[in-house]
């Protein structure tokens, strides 16, 4: 309980960070309870009311097929969370073992880190597009394609942090007392990585959100039948002058979600051990 309270402390001190946290909780709730909250089915078409502006029946208006924009925006939050969480999990599951291993076993580690350097020579969006060409466009493949770009940054950060932890006195003490490497990792390294990882995760989540929306917009992400904020924006393109509300709502949702995640990440970073702080940028 104390631990939870200490995590919440920076939010209580900064109202805007608290707002970010609340916003994030709202998006998660919207995603979970989408069928309950959404006033209509996201796919129900009604040609009679196509492209109608926001009105009491349809708060966010309707699209070119007469589908309710509010309901689609709510259902699309599921896709946003899926991609965001997916990319974070992908980045952590690959980056943490790679980074920790490379730092603990420098001989092989140096080779691995050089390989990460090679991957970093590819700008993330091009890397994602290349992977999409190989894997084919789909929601899951967006996660892998976007995740690959964050694999490298996450590995580097974990590598740097582990190197630092490795030279801490208590780790050296444990090692000199004959602790096995596995024990060392479980007991001393990983627990100390949790806080910086939480910070990194929130930034990765925010930028993954934007990258996945870009893929959707280019028609190389989730299939158009799935409501996602990026797909909705791609469709709205033809109607921007006739139906600007189709442009407004999904884009605002992307922006607010990414903004909330950045705020949360920033506040968590301020709470971090200052020795780690300089290694984590918001520019993930």
């Amino acid at each position: 309980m104390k631990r939870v309270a200490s995590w919440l402390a920076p939010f209580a001190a900064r109202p805007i960070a608290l707002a970010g946290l609340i916003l994030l909780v709202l998006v998660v709730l919207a995603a979970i309870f989408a069928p309950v909250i959404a006033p209509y089915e996201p796919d129900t078409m009604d040609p009679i009311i196509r492209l109608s502006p926001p009105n009491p029946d349809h708060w966010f208006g309707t699209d070119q097929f007469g589908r309710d924009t509010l309901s689609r925006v709510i259902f699309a939050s599921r896709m946003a969370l899926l991609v965001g969480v997916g990319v974070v999990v992908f980045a952590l599951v690959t980056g943490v073992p790679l980074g920790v291993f490379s730092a603990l076993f420098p001989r092989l580690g140096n080779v691995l880190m050089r390989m990460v350097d090679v991957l970093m020579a590819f700008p993330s969006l091009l890397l994602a597009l290349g992977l999409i060409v190989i894997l084919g466009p789909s929601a899951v493949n967006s996660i892998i394609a976007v995740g690959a770009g964050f694999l490298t940054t996450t590995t580097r950060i974990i590598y740097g942090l582990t190197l630092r932890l490795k030279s801490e006195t208590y780790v050296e003490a444990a090692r000199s007392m004959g602790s096995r490497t596995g024990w060392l990792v479980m007991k001393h390294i990983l627990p100390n990585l949790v806080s910086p990882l939480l910070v990194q995760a929130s930034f990765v989540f925010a930028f993954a959100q934007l990258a996945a929306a870009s893929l959707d917009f280019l028609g190389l992400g989730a299939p158009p039948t799935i409501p996602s904020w990026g797909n909705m924006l791609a469709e709205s393109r033809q109607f921007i002058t006739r139906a600007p509300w189709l442009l407004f709502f999904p884009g605002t949702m992307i922006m607010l979600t990414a903004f909330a995640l950045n705020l949360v990440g920033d506040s968590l970073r301020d709470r971090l051990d200052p020795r780690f702080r300089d290694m984590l940028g918001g520019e993930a």
Partner: protein
Amino acid sequence: MWSFVLKRVMAMLVTLFFASIIIFGFIHLIPGDPIYVMLGDMATPDQAEKLRHSLGLDQPIIFQYLQWAGRALGGDLGRSIFYQAPVMSAIADGAETSLLLASITMIWILLIGVPIGIIAAMRHGSLLDQALSGAAMLLASVPTFWVGLYLILIFAAWLGWLPSSGYPSIFDDGGLANLRYLLLPSLTLAAPNAALILRLTRASMLDVSREDYVRTARAKGIRPWQVVTRHIFRNALLAVVSAFGFTFAALLSEAVVTETVFALPGIGRLVVQSILNRDYPVIQGIVLVVVVIYLVTNLIVDISYRLLDPRVQLQ
């Protein structure tokens, strides 16, 4: 100094070598027979064999790589299947648009990001600082294509001040006035990047202002604005300049989305069209060119960093 440069150049070449293997391997990682994927199922075996031979796909893989890499070194990136022209000339056609777009964007980033970052740092902790930093974070959270679509809606559709799409070359009719076609796209591309540079400038200024020599300068009684311009800004500039190098290279890849929104005939849109056309040699060529630009920019940044800051030597 020269041994440092030599070491960095060698490291870059090694990275480039491995990157080129990945880029080369790309065409082999595509599921199915790339020849039929490119030509479609209607291709006759004869056509397929011809393309296979012209791409060198009928030879041992190591030989294929050497041949591809050797040609690439000589500036020959193969032939586009869709345009029936050398990949290099397709890239050259888009280069003017993309380079101009990236350059104008860099000007916006410089004009917006750096001064506002300095102001925020100088008023550190004030309401103004919080407002500016908050606004920067909000701007960094906005999808670029969304900004682009809004700029089109407001400045092209509603106000009619600026064109919404396309870009005729400045060497065609209209001359330099054609740059107005790049005004909205460059602002779009600049938005998130200016925000990042703003945050970086602010953070870097704050870092430097905590240095001992800044305190000494203040204690000596040097005028506050001189401390800022001479002691803080000059040193803070290092981090910002190095970020500029990365940003320029990154803009070339981020332009993929912006060029699509504004239908600009640049390299970014060429990537997207080549993906849709399954024109793999073009994708391969563009990725190689962008990676080379990226690595060379990094190299220049590294070396200039060392020239600007002798302390780097110690590390």
